[in-house]
């Protein structure tokens, strides 16, 4: 069978199985188990309505439980056991092994740098663009173009930026724009991605380039939501545009800024593709997610790999708690 036909067939089967489940389980409930007729019609309808929510929820709960909730527990268990010893409990041994691995601390240091720089830079750039484009007629087009990298994969972005950073020996024509500018100004070409420490920032630029659009879209909506009366009042009182921006608008959209910041923070903690594709953690650019992938699938060390995954989970947890807290507050 042609792979495309096979694919279409599998798609059709999967989707109709899904629809079939919802359709027939409802019929089964209403017509067979608790039929709305006979002596117990009223009681049956009530009972059916008690069960129906769970019919609707079951596939989602099963998938969420199996693919997200169970792995958290299982990864915790794996991080405390040794696979070679048949899964024996070894306490914090994996974490100890990880803590004496210099590559782990390199990843931690780099992740800290990423966390400091990327959310701040993306949010600031996003805010800047949102504010600037708000006031001009072709702002919508400008926004759309700056938003565009959001649609590009991290791998695609890695290729795009590798071309920007490309270096050729001195004397030959530079095809990377950065080195071309450097050489034109009389400098020497640098291989930016192998320059320890600074190369981290060259990788971060890629993520900032992608995430600025996201920050811009959300902050731009928030800026539009700032009540006009407050701005008018400020103008009447003689505030200049900078004062209006920093003293009137920013304080009113602080909540949104925090949301954008935390969302990008989570993205940063999971960043994998950019490092994997551009340097693969060489030249001191390792990050946690790539370190974990290295341990799991190259070194085949499930214990330390799981321990690294738990570190990522631990770093995400404060944001998780904060989000849940806010969501519950809002529902009340």
């Amino acid at each position, binding site marked *: 069978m042609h792979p495309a036909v096979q694919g279409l067939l599998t798609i059709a089967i999967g989707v109709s199985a899904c629809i079939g489940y919802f359709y027939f389980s409802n019929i089964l409930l209403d017509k067979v188990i608790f039929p709305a007729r006979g002596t117990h019609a009223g009681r049956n309808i009530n009972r059916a309505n008690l069960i129906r929510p769970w019919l609707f929820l079951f596939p989602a709960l099963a998938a969420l439980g199996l693919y997200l909730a169970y792995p958290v527990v299982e990864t915790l268990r794996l991080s405390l056991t040794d696979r070679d010893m048949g899964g024996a409990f070894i306490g914090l041994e994996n974490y100890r092994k990880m803590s004496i691995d210099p590559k782990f601390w390199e990843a931690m240091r780099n992740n800290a740098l990423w966390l400091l720089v990327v959310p701040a830079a993306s949010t600031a750039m996003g805010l800047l663009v949102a504010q600037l484009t708000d006031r001009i007629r072709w702002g919508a087009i400008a926004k759309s173009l700056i938003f565009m990298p959001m649609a590009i994969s991290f791998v695609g972005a890695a*290729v*795009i930026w590798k071309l920007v950073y490309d270096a050729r020996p001195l004397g030959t024509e530079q095809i990377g724009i950065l080195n071309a500018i450097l050489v034109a100004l009389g400098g020497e070409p640098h291989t930016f991605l192998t320059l320890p420490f600074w190369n981290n920032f060259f990788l971060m630029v890629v993520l900032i380039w992608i995430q600025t659009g996201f920050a811009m879209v959300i902050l731009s909506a928030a800026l539009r939501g700032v009540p006009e009366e407050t*701005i008018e009042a400020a103008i009447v009182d003689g505030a200049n545009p900078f004062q209006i921006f920093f003293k009137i608008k920013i304080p009113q959209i602080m909540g949104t800024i925090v949301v954008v910041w935390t969302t990008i923070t989570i993205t940063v903690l999971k960043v994998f*593709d950019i490092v994997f594709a551009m340097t693969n953690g060489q030249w001191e650019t390792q990050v946690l997610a790539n370190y974990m992938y290295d341990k799991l699938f190259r070194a085949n060390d499930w214990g330390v790999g799981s321990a690294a995954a738990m570190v990522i989970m631990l770093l995400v947890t404060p944001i998780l708690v904060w989000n849940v807290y806010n969501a519950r507050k809002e529902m009340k």
Partner: protein
Amino acid sequence: MDNIAGKKSSLTWAVHISVAVLVFLWMFPTVGLLVSSFRSADQISGSGWWKALFPQEQNVMIRTADPALQQQIDGAYVIEGNLFEQDGLPIGTVSVWGTSSRDINAYKPGDTADLGEDGQLTVTENGDYTLLKTTEFSGSRGERVFLTAKTPPTFTLQNYKTVLFSGQATDKMGKAFLNTFTVTIPATIIPILIAAFAAYALAWMDFPGRALLIAAVVALLVVPLQLALIPLLSFHGAVVEATIAFLGTPDPDNLRRFATVNGLGRLLGFEPGEAVSSKGYLGVWMAHTGFGLPLAIYLLRNYMVGLPKDIIENARVDGATDFQIFTKIILPLSFPALASFAIFQFLWTWNDLLVALVFLIDSSGDTTVMTRQIVELLGTRGGNWEILATAAFVSIAVPLTVFFFMQKYLVRGLLAGSVK
């Protein structure tokens, strides 16, 4: 808004210029890749892509036509022709030329060079030349001319042909392109379907534990999928082993290989000795479904809660069942939210590398996806920019198209998903 007081802000020009600069900076890298994908390998390594848009100056050595082509006109021997036509060069204009490699800037277009006993050579701006001599030309080769020529920008589609249709082992992008679609479409449809039902239950049905479940969905929104890799890989392996035990008996040395196959297994097309990989489309669809569900449920529930209560209650009073309310009222009304999530999930699954690496791509490499192919190319052909740029652009083109046509829904979804 700042113009309310009636005076035009003096900053307007500064704003226009800064936005233009920012847009330029943001577009520049992507445009570079696009332009490079239409250039040949020589062009890419010969000059920066930003020069490709303008006429290029290049130095070439060209020979005039063979002496055999000489004509006799008015008692003199003449060889005529156009230098650009000799070597299949792109048609350009001559800026300077010379007849010796030591002095290639000796003559301007239109000048006549005296070659001594070899005659006189005139080269005009468009490359036409006349070689004139009183005696017959001899020898087998033409005269050497060193040209400094301006050639207009030239672009080629050859890279796209190579990447998509050549079918070379290292360039199997065409196959990867199809595979990516096979991953993406079900991985977008299935979570939407499942999430829509769940979101309806969480928005409009009353049952104990509802608030707790909503909180759980919000919590799962941020769980890094990195945690799921190993547990789920083991789980998929266990499913394969159980399937083999059900459809036959496993090989004692390798529990994921059939030793014998029973009737049902034969019916499904399995053979004894066949190994079943725990990696495949089914696994990657399930994984994408699981990872996409929290956002899907969250977005759709938030949207459905906002739908007018009257409609739903009227339908209930008229005797509609929940299933009917859902399919006939809620689903059509929720189209914008469904579209938002569909775009998210499509972009995310199309652009994904990690999930495909872990759950889909086995050692045979038949199920490879584009992101994986590009990483492979980066490793093995890091210097072949023409192949790399084209491959990357093929993979970027689809999400970009979706992005530009459905941006409205994407923005709406982002706003609904983040602003609380």
